């Protein structure tokens, strides 16, 4: 660990950030931490997963059925009832409408908005 630290000390900050970003999840993915022997068995509530899938399907269906909403670059996911919409739109209005619709379908559940607004503006005197 100390050796690694010494080697990376001479790298520029952006390079370190990239290395950290790529390497750390890789290590996590390749070396999963085993559960402690005394840990209780994992309990999976299938109803939650099913409701997530249903929730996603409902949101996606509502978006597709809306005759004025362009969602070709939008994806929807859900985790434990939290809905996440992400992707890119080119008009802030589209983003507001998508989030508004997702919120309406999700009801009291949280909606995470990770939609980017791609502005193509070019400005010079």
């Amino acid at each position: 660990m100390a050796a690694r630290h010494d080697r990376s000390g001479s790298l520029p900050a952006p390079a370190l950030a990239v290395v950290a970003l790529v390497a750390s999840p890789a290590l996590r993915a390749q070396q999963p931490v085993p559960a402690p022997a005394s840990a209780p068995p994992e309990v999976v509530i299938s109803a939650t997963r099913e409701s997530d899938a249903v929730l996603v399907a409902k949101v996606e269906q509502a978006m597709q059925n809306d005759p004025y909403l362009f969602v070709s670059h939008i994806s929807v996911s859900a985790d434990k009832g939290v809905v996440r919409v992400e992707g890119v739109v080119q008009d802030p209005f589209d983003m507001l409408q998508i989030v508004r619709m997702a919120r309406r379908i999700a009801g009291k559940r949280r909606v995470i908005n990770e939609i980017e607004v791609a502005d193509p503006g070019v400005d010079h005197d």
Partner: protein
Amino acid sequence: MLGSQTSLRVADRGFITHKGDRMCCTKVLRSLVATFATALVLLGYSATGVAQQSTPESVQDRMRDLQQQIDQLNQQLKQMREDQAKTQQQASAAVQQVTATQKKVEASDKTMSDFMKGFFGTFDMSIDETTKGMDGMLAYPYTCTGAGGTACSIAPGTSPKMTPNWGPSPYGRVGWMAMMSSNGSNVGYRGTHKIDGTTVDFIYQVSTALNLSAAPGLQDTWTKQSNTVMGAVGLGDTYIGFKERGFGTLKFGTMYMPYKTSTDRLNPFSGGLGDYSVIMGNTGGDNRVEFGTRADHVVVYDSPNWQGFSFDAAYQFGQNPDPYNNIVSLGGTDCYGGNLPGSGNLPLNCDDGGYNWGYSVDFKLEMGGLYLTAAYELHSGVNRSSDGVGANSPIYGALLGPAGANGCPTPANALSAQILDWTDYEALCAEFPNSAIAGTPEYNPAYDTADEFAYKFGVQYTFEFGLTIDYIFEELHRNLPAVLEFQNERQRSGDWLAIEYVFNSGADRLAAGWAHAGASVGDPGGQHNFNPNGIGDNQANMYTLGWWHKLDKQLSWYLQAADTANDGNAHYDIGAGGHGIKTDCHDATHPQFIDYSSAGPTTWGGCHELGISTGVNFKF
């Protein structure tokens, strides 16, 4: 003989490769063999009687012939069975091949579908009718005093730029004019590549801005000057990077910085005449948006979203070898800040806003219909030497003393001797006296190179019934020494308020907006009709209305109007920030000769632009 002919025909048909026909023929052949054998038995019985009348040799010959025919038929039957088995094997292999091909086609279709999905873009074209609202204005109509109370050297109603053709008022067609404008049209491609064995995606995007109404080329007109090329890849957010859900996103390339993107969603008029960038983030007026211009050589980090909270940070590499950032940064095309060298009032330099490094950060919180954001951005060492020197304003005339030996002016006072670069000016005057006399010394760069920063707070509330309200408060700041504050037009406050309502099941929306530019602490007086007695008389208000009607998911029509009312010394426009053609306070003056002071158009403070725009927008 009949049997032989029949068997030959069947054998011929046996070469037909169609599986159904082959099976059909086999059955027929079997039936024929059975019928023929039965006939032989019957013939045997009947032949007994005949044999009593025939010779034994002839019967034996007959039976031998028949036996040969039976053997021949059996041989053919065996061959056909072998052919049938072979054909079945071939058919089975063909089916497997077809299935494999179908899977390949399906996989190819999915790959193509995924590939095509990466393309995105907008086509937007409008017809505008706008006016600059500057008819009847008069150059330097004021009696004035300049810095230090010195009398202005330029008489009212005159201007160094005036010629018999141009006169004391705005030159050219500055009233209502119909125009075609391509607005924010672009094409881009983005994608991801999963890095094996990790939870990290490699991400990329290329993008370009398009001009749908004219041939591509440099963005270089008499008011808009840039080395960037419309239609070239990179004239749009272009980057590569890495994304991991728990870590966030890291991007490297040319992109808008968080200060701008944090409030994009509060701008319903994006790309229109009434885009809030007419005033917000726009220091000094005109068409460029200093705190909303795409940045080169930038690293952007977007954090994950934690329960509605997120933040973004960006760093722009300076990579400018000049200590006053007066040249293009290494690897760049334009000066930082958006212009090519020489586009300001001084020639061949990045003295109209060129800067070194910069950084930008925002914080965002979204809960239900509420969105809150705060953002900050800094540009280091912004060179503004062209901000007024050489623009022939009366103030700068007051800085010029009597002519020296070369006919060029000398410092009028201690202030002038301190802030203007007389050494370079006198050297130029010795070599090119005519050009030098037509202009003025530039600033000593040590004085007019300073950091600029901006911060803002934005709030948006989205009601479920279709109403959205937006508000932004902004402060722009330039760290100038006191000696130069009299010309600091880069420091002021700004406000934006908008209301938007969507109705008719999402098919229609209406919006109204108001932007306000507060008074700056100084004014360089580059305007042709600048009033030096009215320092601070440079506030502005922009009002805008819009109606958008969606024809389907991708195609919409819009109608917008905008009105910018400038105070006497202000010169904000309509259309800054994304509209293809801006309507600003410049008249049609163009250079008659190359001079040291300015080759640009004449700016008229207090212009009152109005415009209406209707067009179509298609997204994909």
